[in-house]
């Protein structure tokens, strides 16, 4: 069954939609809210969002599958996104990706069995002055080393 937005969220979504002359233009902002509320945008969530914006579910799907930040399946409590682009790689990102895989005992794109961590690699995060860098959920961490990664992950409950 398609999930429903909470009453509080519905109000927030109305305010967002009011910012645009066409309802469909609110799709990306609405999807960000939906993903936060439902944890993913899959088949059922597509229908909820489509109904809100008076568009077809396929119009939602073609957008969800285009943008890398929208998740078809939920991620772990902490989503680690480590940069694998040039400036970070010059300073050792690829070794750190290997280290994270080993430490978490998962491959890139997987979630740990306890649903705590998901590991993905991403292109440039716009934090090259702190390379190598990563995001955990929406928090940035830079100048990474193996020790620093241990320290960051150990602090996460």
């Amino acid at each position, binding site marked *: 069954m398609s999930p429903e937005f909470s009453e509080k969220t519905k109000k927030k979504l109305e305010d967002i939609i009011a*910012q645009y002359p066409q309802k469909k233009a609110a799709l990306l902002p609405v999807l960000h809210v939906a993903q936060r509320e439902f944890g993913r945008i899959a088949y059922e969530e597509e229908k909820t969002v489509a109904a809100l914006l008076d568009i077809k579910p396929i119009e939602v799907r073609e957008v969800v599958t285009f*943008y890398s930040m929208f998740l078809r399946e939920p991620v772990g409590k902490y989503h680690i996104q480590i940069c694998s682009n040039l400036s970070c790689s*010059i300073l050792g990102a690829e070794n750190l990706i290997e280290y994270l895989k080993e430490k978490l005992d998962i491959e890139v794109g997987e979630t740990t069995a306890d649903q705590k961590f998901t590991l993905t690699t991403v292109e*440039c995060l716009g934090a090259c*002055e702190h390379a190598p860098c990563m995001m955990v959920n929406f928090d940035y961490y830079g100048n990474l080393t193996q020790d620093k990664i241990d320290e960051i992950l150990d602090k996460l409950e």
Partner: protein
Amino acid sequence: MNEKILSKLFDVEQAHKIDVYLEKDGYRAVRKALTDMNAEQILEEVKKASLRGRGGAGFPAGVKWGFVPKGVDKPKYLCVNADEGEPGTFKDKYIMSYNPHLLIEGIIITSYCVGIHQAYIYIRGEYENIALRLEQAIAEAVDKGYLGKNIIGSGFELNLFVHRGAGAYVCGEETALLESLEGKRGNPRLKPPFPASIGLFNCPTVINNVETLSNVPSIILNGADWFGQVGLPKDGGTRIFGVSGMVKKPGIYELPLGSSLKEIIFDYAGGMKEGKELKAVIPGGMSAPVLTADEIDIKMDFDSLVEAKSMLGSAAIIVIDKDTSMLDVLRLVTKFYAHESCGQCTPCRVGNNWIRKTVNRMAEGRGKKDDLDNILRLANNILGKTLCPLGDAAAMPIISIVQKFRQELESYIRN
């Protein structure tokens, strides 16, 4: 002269708050523009200042605004490009984090000049915390009467809204950005028509980068001549150079256009890290053709870099040392563009993936004699054959790496 236009308040505590910003002469440019100047005067001043686009293409902002047709019975829009996806680039983040009201001032003056009443800041999805900061700054500006209806009693109305992207490099391309803002996949549009006449929601639209718009208040306050003196007459003002890679002090350095690349790397950014030796520099974001260590005695402005067959782009400088393999650099460049191609144009979609597969095979030690020629052939068949500049942005660095580091790349094939 080492004038700071954009980063002057970066060290001032709480300068992102409107009260602090107002104490530091904030919104004086808006007051001057909206009370003492008309639209034509502003347009002439910005044109005369030669304010060139800071996103990458370097198109003069005033000329772009001048393309918006007059007397059209449709709303007009301003889209602020805060997508900042060009690898190596992190400058707009600083403006939006530490000086958001400078950007808002630029947005107000630009909108007033062009006759725009609705503006959107399209910000990359990963900058969630910066989007929140912008929203707070907008709320403050509304509260103080700098946004909304009847701005500072002038009768001018402007609404500003932050629109978050969702992780697609191509949306930094202006027509892909428009598609994305309309709630669609970020597939670039065929041009013409240009956004100035048919843009967002089929209405006349101006699209400018964050750093470009943030320069507007200083032009209004100090005049076009001053702006040209800070930088160059044909390329006014400063750039926020972002230095990353194998240097001692990576970071942002606001310097006049025409500054020396060598000085930026060896003086401002402290030179090479840990006694490493310089091998190559990417001078304007990943899309810019690479320069060898012998080619860095160069001025950093749009025309000088075109002359050197590279580009100033987003002024993001990536410093590569001798211990970094150019095959690795080529592999990372091709991985990026193959991933970010929107898939609309065949040369870009197929070509970039073909190059990526070839380079990956070389990196696994299975390179063949004709691989490099094939890569050049493929890249030349992407160049100039796509709807948007992403195709060129991929082909240019690839061609330059293969041509300038051919000997090194061949050594990986033989071994």
